[in-house]
């Protein structure tokens, strides 16, 4: 056995066992034929095998039911994360427009530092990314998500550098871990467009999952912006309720309803939705997202607790855990039933 053949066979070990059993000798033969033709020997051949192994193990017909289950779940979580990024970008844009309408589009706007076209357009890229993904326009979605990711890294670095002059992005011992956490989180939605499982069917119903909450949350956001930044009180009395029924509360309530619907009607999305909901609620609870900001810039105790949001976040975490457990049991059972058919 020549060193070239030995090395090539080592790379082939990355392939699933059943696939290797059927194809290995033929692949080695073809490789040796191509290696004899000196111009074709390249590291690229090895990368092609690595890529093939990755595809087969994640979404190919050679992945075991258990691997397919984990892949489907990871993709589901990522698609909900892309939806969340789209909604977050829409809310941010609504806030920008709200401030602009009520205070005027000039330099006194609290968001004026982030109002050039690249900032606005870049953050909104999550919306077309999500739309392209659910409509099956995967090439467009992949290009958009890469640009959105680059933009988020750039803008997060700028904001963080403004708050903490000593901050440097992608430094392991960063003094403010929330920024690194956010940048890391961004890879979750990005995963969705690169690991679309075989058999994923574009579904226009996903558009409603964006449009309906986006419209409601944008309205809440615009209505919450005070008429004057220096005199916040003259807003109508009924608007005070928005202090408690805010965007996060609406999102938690929507996730709870979504999980109950998925429990009955959309079993395929149950586990990813439960994991995403539980994780989102836990992150809100741990980061103090239920606290109402005071003039001093932080919460000081129970007087500043948004009770509605806190209750909904706890409920979302509990429902997410219970429903996730049910979804896991269901999926594990169906994976066990499928196991004998695996090649």
């Amino acid at each position, binding site marked *: 056995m020549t060193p070239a053949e030995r090395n090539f066979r080592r790379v082939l070990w990355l392939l699933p066992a059943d696939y290797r059993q059927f194809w290995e000798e033929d692949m080695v033969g073809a490789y040796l034929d*191509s290696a004899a033709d000196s111009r*074709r020997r390249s590291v690229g051949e090895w990368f092609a*095998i690595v890529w093939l192994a990755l595809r087969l193990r994640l979404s190919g017909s050679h992945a075991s039911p258990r691997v397919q289950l984990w892949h489907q779940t990871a993709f589901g979580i990522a698609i909900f994360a892309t939806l969340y990024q789209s909604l977050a970008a829409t809310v941010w844009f609504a806030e920008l427009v709200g401030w602009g309408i009520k205070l005027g589009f000039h330099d006194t706007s609290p968001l004026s530092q982030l109002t050039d076209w690249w900032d606005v357009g870049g953050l909104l890229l999550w919306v077309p990314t999500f739309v392209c993904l659910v409509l099956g326009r995967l090439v467009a979605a992949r290009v958009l998500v890469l640009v959105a990711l680059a933009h988020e890294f750039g803008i997060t670095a700028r904001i963080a550098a403004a708050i903490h002059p000593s901050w440097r992005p992608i430094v392991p011992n960063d003094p403010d871990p929330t920024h690194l956490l956010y940048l890391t989180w961004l890879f979750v939605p990005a995963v969705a467009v690169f690991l679309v499982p075989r058999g994923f069917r574009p579904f226009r119903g996903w558009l409603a999952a964006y449009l309906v909450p986006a419209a409601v949350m944008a309205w809440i956001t615009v209505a919450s912006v005070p008429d004057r930044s220096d005199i916040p009180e003259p807003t109508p009395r009924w608007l005070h309720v928005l202090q408690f029924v805010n965007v996060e509360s609406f999102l938690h309530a929507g996730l709870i309803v979504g999980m109950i619907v998925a429990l009955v009607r959309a079993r395929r999305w149950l586990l990813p939705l439960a994991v995403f909901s539980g994780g989102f609620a836990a992150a809100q609870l741990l980061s103090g997202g239920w606290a109402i900001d005071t003039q001093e810039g932080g919460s000081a105790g129970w007087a500043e607790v948004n009770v509605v949001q806190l209750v909904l976040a706890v409920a979302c975490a509990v429902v997410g855990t219970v429903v996730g457990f049910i979804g896991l049991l269901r999926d594990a059972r169906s994976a066990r039933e499928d196991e004998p058919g695996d090649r």
Partner: protein
Amino acid sequence: MGMTEPAFFVLTALVGESRHGYGIVKEVEDLSDGRVELKIGSLYGILDRLLTEGLVELDREEAYQGRLRRYYRITSGGLDAVRGEAARLAANARAADRRLKSLRPRLES
């Protein structure tokens, strides 16, 4: 939805003649004027899919330098797929050609 360009060339390479793995690689390179250079990993990813879809099947095995070489042939379903894809590409080319011809007089005037 149309098939990928490498899969189209692999099927086309098998029209009229069964071929072994590296034979397909070389034929695809010739057919595409050197534009499509299939890696071994890419070729066997495509062959596996085409075999599963019934567009290609195993023809025979031959001994060559102490190894067994597998030859693949196209099925009738594979021929239909190539015809369909070729017609689709030809229609696209005709549409583009018509549009370009209509542009020419305006450019000349």
